[in-house]
């Protein structure tokens, strides 16, 4: 009888690089030099994509856009660990994931210019359309994992979402289902500490988001989300667990949203610039650069080359995107359903 301890739980936090880019050697993931450099290139590409998007939006060439700057490590590091057959369910702020997986850059811009066609993932990439409705896509990953297991496919289903999404009912229902069925699924939270103007401290009273995994009897871990090697390592581990029948993992990447929520937002209304300044020192790209420079894999000249290459890629993509002819109104109908009703057929003709 009496008062006894029913269970004890521990939540881990993982970091590999410190703020100066110094690695905890035993934790370094097994990545070749090429791969390490590729991580750097991808992060630079992601940031270049992002900053260009902001510029294009200001010029009216893109619509409302949610910047990813500051979150490149969390996005690139996790996506880099995935296999091409894995199924990815992004929210709206994971362009670094798309770019890492090789999503056509012009199509990404096309989507943010307000054209659904930009969301048709090319064959060979299992990326669901960007989900603006916060958190509602998380159950889809559960279903994709059920399908993978049922069809004996190796794929892991990976849902990306923000800290705000963890408050949604669909997050809960999805993670609970994944736990019950011990699915090959991975839930990657970009805790950028803001949901528009709401700081994560007002999003939940839990001291970490990672501990939310305990509610579902699944693995949960917090990683330094500005440390691309830690994110990569945690994702690999989780993928291996998933592929070997060990069930789902919830990964909290602790990072920071460096820009406004979207181009329609003005973060100065609700957060002090000092907070952002402090996080600048933790910039994920410079951190990796310090690490790679320390290992003599990178120097200023090579860094400049990487930037030049990224700018060239982005230039070409913007050009390609702007050369795409506008969609025809018939488009709206052709993807509503395979067999339109009579009324829709008539409406299509008139459109």
């Amino acid at each position, binding site marked *: 009888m009496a008062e006894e301890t029913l269970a004890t739980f521990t939540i881990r936090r993982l970091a590999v690089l410190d703020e100066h880019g110094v690695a905890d050697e035993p934790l370094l993931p097994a990545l070749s030099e090429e791969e390490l450099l590729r991580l750097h290139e991808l992060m630079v590409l992601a940031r270049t994509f992002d900053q260009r998007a902001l510029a294009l939006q200001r010029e009216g060439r893109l619509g409302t856009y949610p910047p990813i700057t500051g979150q490149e490590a969390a996005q690139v590091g996790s996506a880099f660990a995935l296999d091409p057959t894995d*199924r990815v*369910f992004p929210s709206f702020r994971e362009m670094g994931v798309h770019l890492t997986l090789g999503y056509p850059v012009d199509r990404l811009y096309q989507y943010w210019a307000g054209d*659904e*066609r930009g*969301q*048709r*993932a090319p064959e060979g990439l*299992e990326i*669901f*359309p960007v989900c603006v*409705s916060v958190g*509602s*896509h*998380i*159950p*889809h*990953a*559960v*279903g*994709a*994992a*059920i*399908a*993978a297991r*049922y*069809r004996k496919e190796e794929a892991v*289903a990976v849902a990306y979402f923000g800290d705000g999404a963890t408050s949604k*009912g*669909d997050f809960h*229902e*999805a993670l*609970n*289902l994944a736990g*019950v*069925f011990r699915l090959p699924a991975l839930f990657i939270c970009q805790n950028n500490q803001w949901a528009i103007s709401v700081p994560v401290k007002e999003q939940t009273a839990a001291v970490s988001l990672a501990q939310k995994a305990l509610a579902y009897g699944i693995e949960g871990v917090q990683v330094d989300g500005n440390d691309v090697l830690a994110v990569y390592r945690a994702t690999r581990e989780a993928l291996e667990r998933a592929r070997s029948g060990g069930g789902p993992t919830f990964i909290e990447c602790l990072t920071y949203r460096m820009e406004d929520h979207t181009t329609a937002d003005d973060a100065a209304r609700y957060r002090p610039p000092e907070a952002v300044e402090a996080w600048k020192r933790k910039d994920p790209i410079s951190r990796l650069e310090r690490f790679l420079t320390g290992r003599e894999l990178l120097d200023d000249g090579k860094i400049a080359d990487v930037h030049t290459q990224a700018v060239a890629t982005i230039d070409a993509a913007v050009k390609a995107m702007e050369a795409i002819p506008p969609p025809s109104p018939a*488009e*709206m109908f*052709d*993807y*509503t*359903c*395979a*067999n*339109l*009703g*009579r*009324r*829709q057929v008539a409406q299509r003709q008139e459109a």
Partner: protein
Amino acid sequence: MAQLNMVQAINLALAQEMERDDRVVLLGEDVGRDGGVFRVTEGLQERFGAERVMDTPLAESGIVGAAIGMAAFGLRPVAEIQFLGFAYAAFDQLATHASRLRGRSRGRFTCPLVVRTPYGGGIRAPELHEESSEAFFCHLPGLKVVVPSGPYSAKGLLLAALRDPDPVLFLEPTRLYRMIREEVPEEDYTVPLGTARVAREGSGVTVIAWGSMLERTLKAAKPYDAEIIDLLTLNPLDLETILSSVRKTGRLVIVHEAPLTCGLGAEIAATVAAEAILSLRGPVLRVAAPDVVMPLPKLEDAYLPTAEQIQAALDEVLKY
């Protein structure tokens, strides 16, 4: 050919399609071990295993959401929502995702999903167990809505729904589950989606009903020269069958058990008012539940449309 009730007909359709197509997987609360609270999925878990007939946690949004992911990745999920009143919690998944996935991904991902759910009144059950809120779901482009009116149409429509490339909401009129027995062929057949059935020919007035109200309408309209249309698919509407009947009879009564305002009857009446107005000899009448919430059993009969109300509407339109 066997005489089956609707529960058996649906069970048969599911079993046969699962046999034929191993992508068909059922999921929902109590669909497995228990065989569903109405026994619609009885025996299927024993026969096809727990991987294909999955008992889920109690989470309607999660069930439909997971089914969407399953559908997008090569399965043909059949998600059961235990009663239509609990589908409101899955409304977001249906409205935001199931009905839009094809469009949002520009055809890269599709959602061949069937959501089955018992619906409608007349069974003396607790709150939310007798909703007939079909109209909500008919206002979602991209989602088909189907209601069988008997065992035969139940099997054929369900097989059609299971083979449709897009999501279908399959509403099963609970009151009819065991009320009607019909010849239901063992063989494979489909009743095509989007096509209404003329349940009885007639020339004095057109009456449109579906599900459990069809049964009541057929009885009430016996003494009348009425053409009775069994709608079967609520979205998309079979405009041709409706309009050509109304053009013939010049009179229209619509019967549904949902509240009048913004029920599906409104769409049918409005369509006729736009496209067959010159054929109309009198008002288009709707016999529907009043604009109140479905009450508990003690007032259930006062809520649901009665044979007398249907007859009063027929008498009224026949005055013109």
